[in-house]
């Protein structure tokens, strides 16, 4: 919340203040139990034949000098999958375990823990140590009942995900996220809503898919920017292969009046504005992805979203909306109508007091109102759960203009004939370059002939990249492209949308300019959060470890070159997680390249040299299939 004190940085615990015997406490943000209580928790766990878990630290309220204080305690996070089993087998009465361990073991053993009365009974026996997670201002700790409830929800969610055959490994915080999403509807069963606002890179889409797949009554509706429709279809097919997916998009769209139960319909905000079929269906879950799209309550899309009938209404955004009160109101007005009151009243009661005169009372009140319906976790908070590098492929769609240019270029090349031998190689290479440029942006392909006035809305990839970079607000991003012209288009456009000049580091810059850009990116807190680089410039031994995200705007034939660029931002032993996003346009040569990369990476770096050459060696029919993305 704006101007609310962030959770006071808790001091590290003094070892003498630890109880000296093992304790267990449920951490809601991580969605798992944490072992603590002795100076060397791992050794104590080993001594009892228990899995060591992952090292982390947690803010807990424990007795220090006779009163409860929030301190940072070293913990080992139990793996919710395996370690609960180990906990069940534990011979607690004889070991040097705290009562917190005993009560959590009891909770894990009770099949009926989700049942209110059983839960209350166990809760009554729980010592404070078992649920000593303090609130932000350090005045209260999570209650035993709430901790048990969250624990039971996590267990049940895991079981449901297994039944639904969701084919993904959920990290503990993601499991907690799915459980939270499910709980939004559980309170009264009838309706509910909320905002999943995890920082970009934490897997919001996967958590949403977990929710959709475990509510099999369906049908569900996913509304996302047009640039993401293909990506949703892909991700649903990958993680929930048993879920029927209907893409409702394009001029020839045709929605069955009653989609099959459990089906997920994916559509774009553009369609939502004008479509009659969508409001006629009784939806179970409505997902509004990239909910910044409905930040203006007067926009057609926002009004259409508010009118859609759905039992559970979820907005997803990586932008910290709680800092922009108008947006927060607009989004919650769709997911949780009435929660914040009418818009004019919200301005009087909250927006003006908080934004204009920084009223802590109004901020605290708003925070309390919103907190149950907003889940936001940052990479820093769940660092222990994250691998050092996470790769994700974002599938983009061609716009109508791109599709036309692409088809024309392919048709022309084949009509003219590609010839054979050296000549064929030259012509195939020229064609590939043209197609890659069209995927990037029509303006790059058309160059001086481009008559378009605006860059937005003409390239699925360009729009998606712009949305992503706007969303990564608190972190630093490197964007690689192999084309100078593309880098310049991006620099121009992003400088406008981000409201700050976005620099472009390319081989044409002198070493001094390059150094200055790198230094600013690494060390200057006011430097623009985005740095564009030509892929070639990445060969210059740059050190750009401040980046939390790397975006590959276009594909290079050789994955090793991309990896080298990625490694500019990642150093072995670096204690922070890096997200690597690769943009791929569906149904184009880019998909073929992506598939090729996968197989090359699988060959452990044995790179089969000349990919363009390999394409030139294909027959016309096979080449055409590759160019139209039909081989991938």
């Amino acid at each position, binding site marked *: 919340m704006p101007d609310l004190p962030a959770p006071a940085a808790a001091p590290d615990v003094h070892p003498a203040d630890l109880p000296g015997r093992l304790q267990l406490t449920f951490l809601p943000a991580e969605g798992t139990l944490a072992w603590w209580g002795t100076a060397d928790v791992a050794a104590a766990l080993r001594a009892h034949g228990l899995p060591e878990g992952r090292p982390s630290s947690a803010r807990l309220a424990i007795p220090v000098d006779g009163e409860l204080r929030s301190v940072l305690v070293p913990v080992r996070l139990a793996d919710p999958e395996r370690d609960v089993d180990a906990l069940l087998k534990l011979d607690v009465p004889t070991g040097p375990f705290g*009562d917190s361990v005993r*009560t959590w073991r009891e909770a894990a053993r009770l099949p009926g823990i989700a049942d209110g009365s059983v839960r209350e009974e166990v809760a009554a026996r729980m010592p404070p140590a078992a649920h000593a997670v303090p609130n932000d201002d350090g005045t209260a700790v999570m209650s035993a009942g709430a901790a048990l409830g969250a624990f039971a929800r996590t267990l049940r969610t895991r079981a449901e995900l297994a039944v639904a055959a969701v084919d993904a490994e959920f990290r503990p915080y993601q499991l907690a996220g799915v459980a939270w999403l499910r709980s939004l509807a559980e309170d009264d069963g009838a309706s509910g809503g909320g905002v999943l606002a995890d920082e970009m890179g934490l897997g919001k889409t996967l958590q949403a898919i977990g929710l959709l797949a475990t509510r099999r009554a369906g049908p569900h509706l996913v509304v996302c920017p047009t640039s993401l429709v293909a990506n949703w279809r892909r991700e649903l097919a990958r993680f929930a292969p048993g879920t029927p997916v209907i893409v409702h998009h394009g001029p020839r769209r045709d929605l069955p009046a009653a989609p099959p139960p459990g089906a997920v319909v994916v559509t774009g905000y553009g369609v939502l504005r004008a479509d009659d079929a969508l409001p006629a269906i009784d939806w179970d879950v409505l997902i509004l992805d990239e909910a910044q799209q409905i930040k203006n309550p007067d926009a057609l899309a926002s009004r259409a979203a508010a009118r859609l009938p759905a039992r559970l209404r979820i907005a997803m955004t990586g932008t910290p909306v709680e800092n922009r009160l108008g947006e927060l109101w607009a989004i919650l007005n769709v997911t949780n109508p009435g*929660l914040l009151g009418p818009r004019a009243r919200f301005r009087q009661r909250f927006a003006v*007091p908080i934004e204009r005169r920084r009223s802590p009372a109004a901020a605290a009140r708003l925070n309390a109102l919103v907190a149950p319906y907003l889940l936001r976790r940052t990479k820093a908070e769940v660092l222990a759960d994250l691998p050092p590098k996470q790769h994700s492929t974002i599938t983009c769609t061609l716009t109508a203009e791109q599709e036309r240019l692409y088809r024309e270029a392919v048709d022309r090349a084949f009509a003219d004939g590609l010839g054979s031998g050296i000549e064929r190689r030259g012509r195939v290479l020229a064609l590939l370059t043209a197609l890659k440029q069209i995927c990037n942006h029509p303006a790059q392909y058309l160059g001086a002939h481009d008559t378009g006035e605006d860059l937005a809305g003409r390239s699925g990839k360009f729009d998606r990249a712009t949305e992503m970079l706007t969303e990564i607000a608190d972190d630093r991003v490197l964007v690689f492209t192999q084309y100078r012209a593309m880098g310049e288009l991006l620099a121009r456009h992003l400088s406008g949308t981000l409201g700050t000049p976005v620099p472009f580091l390319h081989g044409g810059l002198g070493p001094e300019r390059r150094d200055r850009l790198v230094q600013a990116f690494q060390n200057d807190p006011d430097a623009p959060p985005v740095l564009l680089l030509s892929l070639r410039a990445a060969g210059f031994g740059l050190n750009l470890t401040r980046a939390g995200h790397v975006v590959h705007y276009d594909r290079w034939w050789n994955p090793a070159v991309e990896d080298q660029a990625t490694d500019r931002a990642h150093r072995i032993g670096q204690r922070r997680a890096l997200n690597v996003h690769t943009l791929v346009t569906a149904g184009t040569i880019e998909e073929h390249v992506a598939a090729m990369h996968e197989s090359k990476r699988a060959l452990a770096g044995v790179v089969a040299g000349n990919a363009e050459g390999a394409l030139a060696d294909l027959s016309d029919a096979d080449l055409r299939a590759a160019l139209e993305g039909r081989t991938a």
Partner: protein
Amino acid sequence: MTAEFGATAWGRAWLRTAEPVAAPPDRLRPKARSLARNHAVTSLTITAGQVEAEVAGHRTSLRLPLWDDAERVERLVAKALDNAGPLAPGDLPDDLAAAFRSEGIAIAVPPDALTPDCACAARRPLCVHALATLYALIQRIDETPALALDLRRQAHQLPDPPSPDWTPMSTINPAHFYKSPGETNGPTTSARTRVR
């Protein structure tokens, strides 16, 4: 444009107490507004018939009369809440303010019905600290209009029930932090000798 003081009908009613239309502007007004604006009014508590705060180091309070026709007030409140539909927590419908007006019930009290008390040395009763407290009250009522009712009627509702999801730290005995309630056997960790 939302007013800094008196953004809602409820705050605006109390603004008339701070700035009566009939009287010449108080020369302390700019200073008092500035104190409220700059968060110099702290620990503001609002209870039936009383507002207390600390202003620039001075304990200040305002006492004021409750509504004398409590029954009529309750009737109007009940009716307005029935008609209003769902309300955001802490809010009141502006229709209720209008109903008060048409029934001749004043939301706020006139300046001479206030009994200010301040620890400062100023001789005038409504010192700059008391006036600043009034401005802070107006802002607080704008944020939470329901306080306008709490201020002028006997507390007939219980305070918000404690949230079942949170246990206040003040209710936890540090000596029993590690021990299951209701079990008396076994060594208690709190009895360990602490070495620093």
